């Protein structure tokens, strides 16, 4: 995968895999907040990244997909944080049951993706027929 938006010479990668379940999203959120904090983003920017990554995880959980993990890749260089969120499977593990239907009576469609687009500087969906949807988002450090 090319690291568009980050400098391959200096990029540092943190990878996280969580079970594809609502109760683990907070772990992803806090890990990504720690990464953004290490990169010296402002408190407001850290909150932005935290919410955007959580929304991407929530989408991954609510999508009609039988994968059992969420795979989060954070690539940091001196000027950007690039986060990729994708559904994944533990190799060899049986696929989990498909997620329960979303039972919100008010499903504000698009609010999650709208927030991600508002809070991050660059957002892309990479649709891989084999590997599912990858949501890629970039936050730039003020220089």
């Amino acid at each position, binding site marked *: 995968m090319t690291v568009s938006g980050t400098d391959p010479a200096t990029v540092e990668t943190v990878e996280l895999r969580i079970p594809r379940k*609502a*109760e683990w*999203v*907070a772990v992803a*959120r806090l890990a990504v907040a720690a990464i953004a904090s290490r990169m010296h983003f402002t408190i*407001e920017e850290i*909150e932005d990244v*935290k*919410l955007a990554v*959580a*929304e991407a*995880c*929530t989408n991954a*959980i609510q999508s009609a997909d039988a994968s059992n993990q969420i795979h989060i890749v954070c690539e940091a260089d001196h000027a950007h944080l690039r986060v990729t969120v994708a559904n994944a499977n533990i190799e060899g593990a049986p696929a989990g049951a498909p997620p329960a239907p979303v039972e*919100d*009576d*008010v*499903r*504000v469609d698009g*609010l*999650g993706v*709208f*927030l991600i687009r*508002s*809070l991050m500087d660059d957002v892309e969906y990479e649709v891989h027929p084999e590997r599912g949807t990858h949501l890629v988002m970039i936050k730039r450090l003020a220089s």
Partner: protein
Amino acid sequence: MDIKVNVRETDGDCNIVELAGEIDVYTSPKVKDALGELIDRGVYNLVIDLEKVRYIDSTGLGVLIGGLKRVREHGGTVNLVCTNPQIKKIFDITGLVKIFGIYDSEDAAMKASV
């Protein structure tokens, strides 16, 4: 990483729902249940105090919107107490400032509920 829900009756006909913690995809069903229970009991004027909420995501917003839709069917109101700039920003970005009353204190939110 969890949410606490504390419901208080007031002298007027509104109830104050005080939330503390984080409202996300994991915890928002608990908030939804608490609001649903109140509305089922015929409480249609709600003040939701978000002062102790450190984090809210789109599922949390969805639950608040769902509550508002239900009470409006009965001529009710949902007024929010919120001063946390990051959380106010989320209501701003999404345009929800226009559909909720957002106040700086429980008193102000209660006055608006009358």
